[in-house]
């Protein structure tokens, strides 16, 4: 499986193994890790991640397909961890193998941006401390309360 939501620790080596491909001259890996200063300058020691697992996997697989089509990526691996993660732990790893480095960099960047924006995964420090809609949203989403319907 090239897309995973897991509560187990993520390892770069395992993702890298999924990207073995003789025709790919370039591999780019992105690792997102829990930082101690995630919450507006306050130090946090851990974050809780949760996901709508079924929908998240569907969205991740769609992103994988788009990365293949748009960038010519030959191997894509997307894995996000959920549960309680301590500072320094990897929360997400994006891996891309492509024939050339431009495609590999482009696809990896595309995937992490879209993953953050469009995949139903949440971290606790954000929503626990700003429960109402004070955060700017990046694009309109189906808005229940404001819906004219």
């Amino acid at each position: 499986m090239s897309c995973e939501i897991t509560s187990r620790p993520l390892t770069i080596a395992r993702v890298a193994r999924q990207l073995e491909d003789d025709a790919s001259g370039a591999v780019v890996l992105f690792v997102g890790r829990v930082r101690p200063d995630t919450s507006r300058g306050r130090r946090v020691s851990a974050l809780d991640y949760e996901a709508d697992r079924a929908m998240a996997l569907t969205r991740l697989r769609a992103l994988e397909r788009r990365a293949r089509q748009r960038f010519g990526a030959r191997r894509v691996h997307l894995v996000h961890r959920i549960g309680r993660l301590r500072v320094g732990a990897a929360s997400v790893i994006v891996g891309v193998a492509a024939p050339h480095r431009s495609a590999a960099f482009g696809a990896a960047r595309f995937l992490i941006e879209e993953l953050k924006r469009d995949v139903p995964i949440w971290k606790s420090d954000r929503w626990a401390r700003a429960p109402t809609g004070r955060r700017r949203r990046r694009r309109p989403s189906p808005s229940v309360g404001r819906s004219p319907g």
Partner: protein
Amino acid sequence: MTRSVRVLLFATAREAVGAASVDWEVPASGSTVRALLAGLVEEHPQLEPILKGSRLACNGVYVRGRRARIGPGDEIAIHPPYSGG
């Protein structure tokens, strides 16, 4: 035979209700997203501001607007703004 929909609550929505999911009775003839949400907000007023910023999905597919019909056995997910990564 089930007469309810299951509502999946995530992140702030889950915190507001105090549960990861609730089963909500609907008429056998079905209902609408609008009616479901009105009922939920009546029981959990703290959900209202969260729903304004949330995406909704029915059986794994995003639904737009509140007219969409739902019926017994459906699974409705409430997605506050995503913050993965």
